[in-house]
């Protein structure tokens, strides 16, 4: 990626990160659509021999030989038996029966996590710069599990099984599905085994935001990553015939529009079908579109396909407007015709003009790349949100990382839009999703693993979470683009990742397999369900009291029964509910005395911590504390938030608090 290393402070603090030998011992496994091995992001110049721990392979198949692997791309496997069993043999004229990436997504994610340094990267001149993965010295192993027809759980499990055998250190999964209980979810099941072997598993939170309860991959042994923006934009302005100008974003490069205002039409008025406003295939009437700029509504079909539909109907340009589902979030695309995306408010203003002027006109001006956009980051509207629908007492997502308009390597088999009619080929593409934020965290976890080889996956996640930030440098709170208001821990988890601070977190919240087994007991899992998930006979001790609240997680989620018969506007009731959470912190730094500070968004919740001071005389020393949440009953769907911070004056160890009444 060309901007995130600087946005995350990695470029400015390169000397703080591990020397090349340690860093190149770490192996990042990526389960995705495969890899385009010819990408310069997988150049192995300067890398030493493959780590001796590596047991993996470079599998041979369609257009893929052993020589496609090297000292950077050290492993490449593919898993298609489940896919083929359901959908029949792979059509090798359409996709490669090999680790080769015909889609681009896998090449993008794996190069984001651990791609080599590539000078002169750009997409049609946009986002130009030196691209690199978050852990540019780490090795990459790809496991192709996603095909044209989807990613099948039997293949995903097989890939996770092999990745564990192969000895990867970090696993990156930018995929998800449904909201199954942990013992029925193949990603959660496979990740449990990986966690036991010391492998950190980073997963995307999903793109179902901004709705609440929209998260996937919420098991507490996973690191769940939401998405935020960068300080970079690709502005493209729309000038209307009434003299008004509106800003949008675009990655279009090609023939310009004629240097004059063109007829402007709303797609909904250039169609005979009820959903013609969406610019779906074969829904526009060419006579009403030809030679015009068309305003299309976002939704249902892919954004870039709408541009293709307008072009096929003879349109010269497109303005793509968000609806309420997306608000003001702008996602840039490399459209096949001059086109720009605009926010909902702008779109409504344009529609007002279109419906009131008998001869509406418009043109689009493309401005290229702009950096230094503020505020940034903001939480992406599409980023899935909490509360956690499986275990409300575990706050998810864990954190956010860059996931909007990310430039990274691309497959040579497909154009930047992914459309069949897009014959352009690019070395890099700019796309958005929690798929893009997840490998950022995977790569950063690889950096931490190199710096602290003895840290457990939970300790690495803790360092990333407790050092994440929730406010801009000017002190204002991180914003949610879907509301324009401050985001909450249900949106950003612990906050935005800050890898430089994560290197030295001060204290960590560690977890081992026994802790997770006790957590399963707290969920009242049967022995059979635990066996499904953890592959062992484990009986919960009937004499022991298990509590989900005591899982040593670096964040706090308190789920309380709502006061029935009330609404959010009618207020709460009297009589407090008291909930206690136990935590143990491990000193990862020098001796020191940490003092706690607590903040809460509401007087209806009291948070107290006992003891309020923790003194550590040596590294790895553990100290425990208890948090007491005292809350008055509130109407259903009320949420309040807070923060608990431990600091010795140098290190700040922060934990978000989310309290919800359901």
């Amino acid at each position, binding site marked *: 990626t060309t901007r995130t290393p600087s946005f995350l402070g990695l470029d400015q603090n390169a000397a703080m990160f591990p020397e090349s030998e340690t860093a190149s011992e770490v192996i990042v496994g990526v389960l995705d659509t495969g890899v385009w091995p010819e990408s310069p992001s997988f150049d192995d110049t300067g890398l030493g021999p493959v780590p001796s721990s590596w047991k993996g392979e470079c599998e041979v198949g369609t257009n893929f030989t052993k020589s496609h692997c090297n000292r950077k791309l050290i492993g490449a496997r593919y898993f298609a038996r489940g896919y083929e069993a359901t959908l029949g043999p792979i059509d090798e004229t359409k996709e490669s029966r090999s680790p080769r990436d015909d889609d681009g997504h896998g090449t993008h994610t794996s190069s984001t996590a651990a791609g080599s340094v590539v000078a002169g990267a750009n997409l049609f001149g946009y986002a130009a710069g030196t691209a690199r993965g978050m852990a540019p010295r780490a090795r990459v192993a790809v496991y192709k599990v996603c095909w044209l027809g989807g990613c*099948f759980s039997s293949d995903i499990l097989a890939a996770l*099984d092999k990745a564990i055998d192969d000895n990867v250190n970090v696993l990156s999964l930018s995929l998800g599905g449904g909201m199954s209980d942990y013992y029925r979810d193949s990603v959660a099941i496979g990740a449990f085994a990986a966690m036991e072997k010391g492998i950190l598993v980073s997963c995307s939170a999903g793109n179902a935001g901004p709705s609440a309860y929209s998260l996937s991959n919420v098991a507490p042994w996973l690191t769940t990553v939401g998405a935020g923006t960068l300080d970079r934009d690709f502005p493209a302005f729309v000038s209307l015939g009434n003299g008004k100008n509106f800003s949008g974003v675009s990655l279009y490069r090609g023939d310009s529009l004629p240097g004059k205002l063109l007829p402007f039409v709303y797609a909904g008025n250039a169609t005979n079908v009820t959903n013609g406003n969406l610019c779906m295939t074969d829904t526009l009437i060419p006579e009403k579109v030809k030679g015009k700029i068309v305003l299309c509504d976002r939704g249902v079909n892919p954004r870039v396909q709408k541009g293709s539909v307008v072009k096929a109907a003879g349109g010269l340009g497109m303005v793509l407007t968000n609806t309420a589902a997306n608000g003001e979030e702008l996602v840039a695309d490399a459209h096949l015709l001059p086109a720009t995306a605009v926010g909902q408010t702008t779109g409504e203003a344009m529609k007002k003009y279109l419906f009131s002027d008998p001869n509406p006109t418009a043109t689009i001006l493309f401005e290229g790349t702009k950096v230094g956009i503020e505020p940034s980051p903001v939480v992406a509207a599409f980023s899935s949100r909490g509360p956690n629908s499986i275990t409300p007492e575990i706050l998810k997502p864990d954190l956010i990382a860059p996931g909007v308009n990310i430039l990274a390597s691309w497959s040579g088999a497909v154009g930047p839009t992914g459309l069949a009619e897009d014959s352009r080929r690019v070395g890099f593409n700019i796309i958005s999703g929690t798929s893009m934020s997840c490998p950022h965290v995977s790569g950063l976890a690889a950096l931490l693993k190199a710096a602290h080889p003895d840290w457990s996956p939970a300790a690495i996640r803790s360092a990333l979470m407790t050092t994440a930030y929730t406010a801009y440098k000017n002190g204002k709170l991180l914003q949610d683009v879907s509301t324009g208001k401050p985001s909450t821990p249900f949106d950003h988890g612990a906050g935005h990742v800050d890898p430089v601070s994560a290197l030295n977190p001060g204290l960590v919240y560690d977890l081992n397999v026994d802790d997770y087994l006790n957590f399963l007991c707290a969920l009242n899992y049967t022995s059979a369900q635990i066996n499904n998930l953890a592959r062992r006979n484990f009986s919960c001790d009937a004499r022991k009291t298990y509590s989900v609240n005591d899982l040593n997680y670096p964040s706090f989620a308190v789920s309380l029964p709502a006061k029935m018969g009330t609404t959010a506007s009618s207020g709460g009731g009297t009589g407090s509910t008291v909930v206690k959470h136990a935590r143990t912190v491990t000193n990862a730094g020098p001796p020191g005395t940490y003092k706690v500070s607590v903040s809460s968004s509401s007087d209806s919740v009291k948070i107290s911590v006992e003891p309020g001071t923790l003194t550590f005389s040596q590294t790895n020393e553990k100290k425990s504390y208890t948090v007491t949440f005292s809350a008055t009953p509130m109407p259903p769907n009320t949420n309040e938030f807070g923060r608990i911070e431990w600091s010795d004056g140098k290190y700040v160890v922060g934990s978000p608090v989310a309290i919800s009444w359901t």
Partner: protein
Amino acid sequence: AVEEKRTYIVHMAKSEMPARFEEHTYWYESSLKSVSESAEMLYTYNNVVHGFSTRLTPEEAREMETRPGILLVLPELRYQLH
């Protein structure tokens, strides 16, 4: 009516493997053959679960669940890229 086959992931309790089996894979195969002569394993899993994936009819899957040592017969799920 012929029931259509679909993919299932069969979770097994390894500790319940009868002593007559030297290898767990033989036990898996024996369990599978007891409900379907024609079914073949897609994968056997060693690290992530004790078990295998295979194609079964719903009836065979229900029968499989009643076999000794079977923890769960989980239908295949399709995941999406994010």
